[in-house]
């Protein structure tokens, strides 16, 4: 790393957790700063460190302070986050520290400052921590754009990425790196003439660049990112727990294994117990405390808890006072937590990379192996856990799809650039294309974004006189006025959180009680006053929802009415899914599985069909008064839910009267009034369902409204905060839904609707994955027309009931009976 630093090379350092990655990143800067010659003028920022978490930036500041003090170095290192006080921020602007530690949002703010160019002129190095988690989302887009900007301010700046092990380092390198200014992808005379409202016509950049010799100096430097691989740590020890020799048919909670998990916690020093959702965390925490006769210090950590409460747990962990923490992805990354010697994953991990990351939380010493225990909650999960354990041992990780930068983020960036200093269209276009996610940005799209930033991008040109950015007589674009700039700065950032409400103790009369934490608004919308639920490890009674506060009071109930679990938040990774399919097909692999799972697979082969590795198994069978269609595509819950919605529409048109469906990570189950045995399955699964059917459904869907709201906020169409405007006493809510409806009717091809459609398709719907699957299974559907439920179908048949009446005693009895019937039917 030091060598690369001296050569001024861009580097991506990939090393497992515990390898001293962060220090390696800073070392070249520390050396340079120590060796620098004294100068008369105050120096600017030398090294910029970017972390995805505020807490991590503050933590690194602390960790750097020790060596700097002990070695007596004359180096200043300071953090700057949203929580940093105003006076410190002001001082940092006047007298920049040598090393500035901050977040992508703060960097975006810096870049929107008038003095940004001078402030960063001396910048020599940018270190991006947790790069593997940062790049594949909108925050990563924004950060890549800001890196491109910084490179213009400080041509000699080096980029250093620190990353955990990833499947495809090239994707991270592409994101991190500086992209040489290649001619833009313009076809023969494709520039639309007169289409845009941009009044200054830039010369087509392609012509300019092709005719000039390669630029001198900085741009001659080869900016490809070098890859440095840290020494791999000891091979982790990964085991799969088969509690009592049995694996349950269905479920998400691994309730059956709790007693054994408790014993294992007891026999280890400190354990991290990972689960996939907040509700699973609450459930596991409750169950473990029911068994906790020894009074072990078992804590809870998830994103809904009040920040103060989380900090307390973290501090106690660091002091070594805690035996186990039940946690969600909130503890996936970052800070070192004392002496963790075991990682337990309750329910399947859904992806090998995530599991490797989680295992890395244990034992931060390279020479000793980390220990991990996977606890499958159902039979398909058993297959998945086995596949994950094999993948981890074999060093196979999940791939991320390549990413194209989002245009709503680009709109925010363009506005930020205008706030900082006037820009020329072509120069900005060239600069933007040096950022990985935007390397292929089309001129037309850029033009559309600039038009959007300036006038809103409407076909009806009524806003020309109110432009937010205006071209001057010099051809340069600048922000309209100081107020426009101030408003932009108040709204920078790309994290749009789901509507959350504060959970407070209090009844109707006594409001304003202690805050217990935060939860999604939707969670309480399903509840009526008097319902009980588990939150922050306790049972509460829901009293009322007032504004942004949900009022609750402690309940004596031992059996809370739990909300539906909703299964896993993460979809099963494509890689694990294909491994599971291969494992099912290859009987030699079965030997590694518990006896009851082997028996289950055997019966499936006997009663139905065991599909080939690249086939889709589809079963039809009657049960009760209904007809079922079940298929096992292993594409994850999101893609499955989308597919089920679209298939239901189709089945309705085909006249079979679909009544409902359930979808989980592994399969889809649709039931109807008429038999679906005779349907033309190739027609049913024809790829064109992703065309008009998807479009029609999406336009009406709340998903689009939610996606639109996020895009509207990020792009600056809607502002969260306005300077000096206090809300009046009465709240008139003016929702983005109204804007969405009007825009959809009057300009359906508007930039933000395009963005929203792309986001909805990629995010909540997983349309990309669905498309791949539909293509893969063309002509490969194996249909088993059965007279009764198959062994594979049992888990998803059980989920039909589970979605309805969770926790209700009568419901559980009905379910238990139904379960026995069903299993007997399938296995006899």
């Amino acid at each position, binding site marked *: 790393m030091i060598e690369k630093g001296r050569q001024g090379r861009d580097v991506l350092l990939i090393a497992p957790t515990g390898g001293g990655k962060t220090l390696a990143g800073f070392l070249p800067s520390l050396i340079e700063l120590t060796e620098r010659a004294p100068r008369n003028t105050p120096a600017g920022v030398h090294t910029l460190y970017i972390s995805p978490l505020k807490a991590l930036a503050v933590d690194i500041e602390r960790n750097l302070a020790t060596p700097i003090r002990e070695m007596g170095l004359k180096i200043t290192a300071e953090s700057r986050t949203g929580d940093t006080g105003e006076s410190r921020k002001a001082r940092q602007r006047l007298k920049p520290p040598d090393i500035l530690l901050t977040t992508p949002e703060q960097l975006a703010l810096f870049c929107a400052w008038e003095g940004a160019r001078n402030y960063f002129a001396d910048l020599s190095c940018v270190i991006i921590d947790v790069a593997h988690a940062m790049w594949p989302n909108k925050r990563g887009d924004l950060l890549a754009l800001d890196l491109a900007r910084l490179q213009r301010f400080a041509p000699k700046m080096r980029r250093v990425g620190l990353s955990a092990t990833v499947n495809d380092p090239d994707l991270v390198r592409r994101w991190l790196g500086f992209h040489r200014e290649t001619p833009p992808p313009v076809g023969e005379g494709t520039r639309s003439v007169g289409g845009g409202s941009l009044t200054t016509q830039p010369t087509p950049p392609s012509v300019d660049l092709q005719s000039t010799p390669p630029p001198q100096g900085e741009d001659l430097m080869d900016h490809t990112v070098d890859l440095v691989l840290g020494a791999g740590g000891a091979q982790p020890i990964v085991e799969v727990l088969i509690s009592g020799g049995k694996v349950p048919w269905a479920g998400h909670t691994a309730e059956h294994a709790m007693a054994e998990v408790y014993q294992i916690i007891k026999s280890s020093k400190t354990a991290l117990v990972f689960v996939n959702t907040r509700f699973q965390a609450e459930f596991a925490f409750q169950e473990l405390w029911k068994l906790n006769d020894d009074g072990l210090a078992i804590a809870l950590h998830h994103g809904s808890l009040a920040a103060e409460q989380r900090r307390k747990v973290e501090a106690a962990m660091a002091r070594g006072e805690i035996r186990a923490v039940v946690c969600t992805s909130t503890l996936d990354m970052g800070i070192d937590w004392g002496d963790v010697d075991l990682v337990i994953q309750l329910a399947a991990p859904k992806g090998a990379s995530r599991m490797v990351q989680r295992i890395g939380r244990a034992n931060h010493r390279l020479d000793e192996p980390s220990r991990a225990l996977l606890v499958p909650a159902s039979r398909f999960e058993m297959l998945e856990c086995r596949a994950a354990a094999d993948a981890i041992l074999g060093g196979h990780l999940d791939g991320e799809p390549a990413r194209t930068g989002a245009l709503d983020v680009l709109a925010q960036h363009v506005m930020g650039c205008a706030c900082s200093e006037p820009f020329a269209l072509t120069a900005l276009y060239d600069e933007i294309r040096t950022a990985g996610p935007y390397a292929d940005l089309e001129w037309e799209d850029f033009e559309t974004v600039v038009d959007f930033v300036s006038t809103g991008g409407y076909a009806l040109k009524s806003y020309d006189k109110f432009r937010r950015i205006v071209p001057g007589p010099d051809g340069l674009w600048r922000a309209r006025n100081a107020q426009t700039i101030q408003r932009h700065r108040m709204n920078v950032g790309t994290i749009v959180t789901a509507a959350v409400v504060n959970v407070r103790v209090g009844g109707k009369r006594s409001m304003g009680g202690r805050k217990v934490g935060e939860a999604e608004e939707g969670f309480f919308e399903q509840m009526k006053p008097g319902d009980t639920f588990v939150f922050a490890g306790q049972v509460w009674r829901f009293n009322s929802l007032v504004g942004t506060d949900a009022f609750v009071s402690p309940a004596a109930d031992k059996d809370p009415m739990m909300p539906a679990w909703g299964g896993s938040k993460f979809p099963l990774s494509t890689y694990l899914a294909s491994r599971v399919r291969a494992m099912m097909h290859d009987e030699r692999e079965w030997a590694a599985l518990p006896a009851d799972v082997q028996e289950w697979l055997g019966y499936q082969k006997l009663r139905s069909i065991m599909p080939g590795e690249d086939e889709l198994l589809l079963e039809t069978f009657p049960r009760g008064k209904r007809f079922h269609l079940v298929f096992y595509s292993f594409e994850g819950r999101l893609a499955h839910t989308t597919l089920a919605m679209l298939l239901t529409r189709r089945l309705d048109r085909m006249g079979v009267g679909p009544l409902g469906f359930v979808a989980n990570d592994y399969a889809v189950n649709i039931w109807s009034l008429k038999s679906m045995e005779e349907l033309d399955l190739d027609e049913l699964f024809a790829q064109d369902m992703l065309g008009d059917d998807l479009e029609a459904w999406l336009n009406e869907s709340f998903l689009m409204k939610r996606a639109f709201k996020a895009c509207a906020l990020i792009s600056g169409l809607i502002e969260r905060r306005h300077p000096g405007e206090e809300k009046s006493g009465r709240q008139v809510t003016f929702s983005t839904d109204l804007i969405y409806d009007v825009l959809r009717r*009057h300009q359906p091809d508007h930039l933000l609707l395009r963005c929203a459609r792309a986001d909805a398709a990629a995010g909540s719907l997983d349309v990309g994955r669905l498309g791949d699957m539909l293509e893969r299974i063309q002509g490969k559907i194996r249909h088993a027309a059965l007279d009764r439920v198959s062994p594979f179908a049992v888990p998803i048949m059980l989920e039909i009931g589970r979605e309805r009446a969770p926790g209700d005693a009568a419901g559980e009895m009905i379910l238990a009976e139904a379960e026995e019937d069903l299993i007997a039917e399938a296995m006899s």
Partner: protein
Amino acid sequence: MSTLSFNISDCGGLKIEIFGTRATLRHSGALWLEGHRTLVVADLHFEKGSSYAARFGQMLPPYDTRETLDRLERELAALSPATLVFLGDSFHDGAGEERLPPEDRTRIAALALGRELVWAVGNHDEDGPRTLPGAVVDEAVIAGLTFRHEPLHGDQPGEVAGHLHPAARVTSGRASVRRRCFVTDGARLVLPAFGAFTGGLNILDAAFAPLFGTPPLAAALGRGRVHAVGWKSLRPD
């Protein structure tokens, strides 16, 4: 004080008597006095979108005026009123009229063809429209009812007003919906806002308390019909 009685009409509207005058609460949010061939709409807030652009540089879609006009023209086509009353805040701000896109201006002017327009002024448009056809008034009395923008406190039998943008959050079981609504006790009436970009104020807000001595009826706008909602089914936001 009138007694409250109502029934659903063929068109999905709610038939009701306001201070003795028979009226239909339309699911569009308009009030129809059939006996007097008078249609009443409140709080159109024309050019609200462009006012955000003009004041803050916030470029909301400039299509709210034509969206509102689409809705209004559907009502005119269905009912052919002789009089069209605007209950104030017809424009979002005093300069809204000048910002109208030419084709939208033409459409508004055409509303006057074959009928009388009455523009009651509101707090957003104190002077009323300057160049559009129709009479600009502070308040109007038609069919024994008094039409004004802002409802007065205390007993005001026969008053029909807008201004407050009433909306109701209605719960049933575990689900809840929020809709624009009419509010009436049979003696007076507050209309929902008719404009495309207008938000709503929950009718449990204190602003409604000085208007009604007894719990009024909320008539929520549904898809294709109006739903009479009792006070007990209402929730705060």
